[in-house]
């Protein structure tokens, strides 16, 4: 039987639910944009979007294809630049939640978006940090979005582009990073969260039809499965909004 929703749609909905009404959201390219636009049209109409290229609090009509897109300016409060976005808003402590993607995510939610293998002669070179390292260090909390495969979820990332809980425990604070840190990792298989003190990861929920044991099999570090529930599926309304209002063209939805 054909699934009533795609994994990408489920991930978008799960990510959207991490946003609370009234929060200031730093949204990166791709799924975070869809999640934030969906949140605005459902449970968090008062959430405010900030884009690193300068768009602040837009009333977006059309999905941007990157954070620098003119579509991030429609009805915006400000069309600024990187200086305002990074210095005053992000580093100034005005961003509640930031969304991050990455090629690898490790046990403590550290992210690699730079390179696989040897740094100077990598087997795969990625786009680079962009603002991700800054968001990971300076947003009130972060939500990570990633494709869940064992090779993408190693014990340690090949290159730590964006800091998560570093080595667990209080290592993030000891590194000199004030506050923040990953609250959730929304993947193609489930949602991972971190224990408050040890920062050890646990499976909060597996997506419908995915056994928690399968999530462990696809994860390169130990994952506590003892509390794993099932990710609530998208509602009919959420899917409708996502498909007809947020991304009717399938700019991102059709790619996945």
């Amino acid at each position, binding site marked *: 039987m054909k699934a009533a929703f795609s994994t990408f749609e489920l991930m978008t909905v799960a990510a959207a639910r991490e946003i609370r009404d009234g929060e200031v959201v730093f949204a990166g*390219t*791709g799924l975070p944009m869809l999640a934030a636009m969906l949140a605005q049209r459902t449970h968090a109409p008062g959430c405010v979007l900030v884009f*690193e*290229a*300068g768009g602040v609090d837009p009333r977006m*009509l*059309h999905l941007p*294809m*990157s*954070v*620098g*897109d*003119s*579509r*991030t*300016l*429609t009805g915006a409060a400000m*069309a*600024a*630049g*990187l*200086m305002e976005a*990074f*210095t005053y808003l992000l*580093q100034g402590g005005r961003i509640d939640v930031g969304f991050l993607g990455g090629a690898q995510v490790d046990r403590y939610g550290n992210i690699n978006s*730079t*390179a696989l293998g040897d*740094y*100077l*002669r*990598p*087997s*795969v*070179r990625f*786009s*680079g*940090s*962009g*603002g991700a*390292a*800054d968001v*990971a*260090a300076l947003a009130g909390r972060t939500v990570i979005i990633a494709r869940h495969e064992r090779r993408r979820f190693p014990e340690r990332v090949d*290159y*730590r*582009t*964006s*800091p998560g809980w570093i080595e667990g425990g209080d*290592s*993030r604070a000891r*590194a*000199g*990073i*004030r506050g923040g840190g990953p609250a959730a990792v929304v993947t193609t298989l489930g949602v991972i969260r971190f224990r408050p003190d040890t920062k050890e990861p646990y499976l909060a929920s597996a997506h419908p039809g995915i056994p928690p044991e399968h999530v462990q099999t696809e994860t390169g570090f130990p994952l506590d499965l003892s509390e794993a529930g099932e990710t609530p599926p998208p509602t009919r309304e959420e899917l409708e909004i996502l498909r007809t209002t947020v991304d009717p*063209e*399938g*700019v*991102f939805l*059709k*790619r996945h």
Partner: protein
Amino acid sequence: MIDKVISLEEAAALVPSGATVSIGGFTSQRHPTALLRALVRRGVKDLVVYCHSAGSDVDLLIGAGCVRRVEAAYLADGVFAPIAPNWRRFVEAGRLEFEDYSNAAMMARFSAGAMGLPFFPVRSMLGTDLLEKEGLPAEVRRTDPTAAPKKAAVIDCPFTGEPVVLVPAIRTDLCLLHVQRASPRGLLRIEGQEFLDVQQALAADRVIVTCEELVDDEELRREPERNRIPPFAVHAVVPVPFGAHPHSVHNYYDYDPRHLALYAEAARSDEAFRAYLDRFVFGPADHAAYLEAVGGPEHLDTLRARSGLGYNPELRRRP
């Protein structure tokens, strides 16, 4: 009245091989691509390029063999190229010097250069390999005057004792920008997001600007609060309609999905990219011929921005 208007070819001739250059814009927005193609045609080599979130602007220079080193935070072209293809291929093959920073760090580096400071502090990059791993070999840092002696430094704040990261200033020989409007005297009007263009311009010895429209100086002086770069910092102005194609210019035209997809495909191998350069960079005799080669007026009209939105809401971004 100082008239700074020159031709695209004259502007390209102001950029010598080996120069340090920063390029304005952001991913697929407002890059001076017509000027970059003119640089490629001239056969410029060994450029040291500083950018933050670049797209196929810097990727084009890399693929054409014009670049010795890139210092950047990010290179991608939205959904069309989630990793800039020449960038990826050249780094994987060890054919390019590079140094990775975050966007906030590049912002800080350009700001320091613009302010005449040797460095600027940031609160990010602590606990990351951006801080721990250097792309440039120590030998290059010691012998190449364009390279900062050190990638970054962590100090304890002398007032609070907290760790902060210091990143070295960037001063470039040239900054290349594309803006919506400019006056012959070098007064610029950027519409939409500024990105980091103001800081990049003021961190450069010379600023070369291409613009969609040349307008009267007095017109831009009527709203001085919208002007952010002093005209005496601008060296040359080149009117080039569609001068950022295939990238977008807010209020003028959108990015070109057809061409960006074609570019992304072509840049995946040396052979295909050579064919791309022959067809779109070396082949066309001038910018007008380039615009014909990418589809001519009929195609370009499909990209035009709608008034009040700044982009084209009808644009089909998926084939």
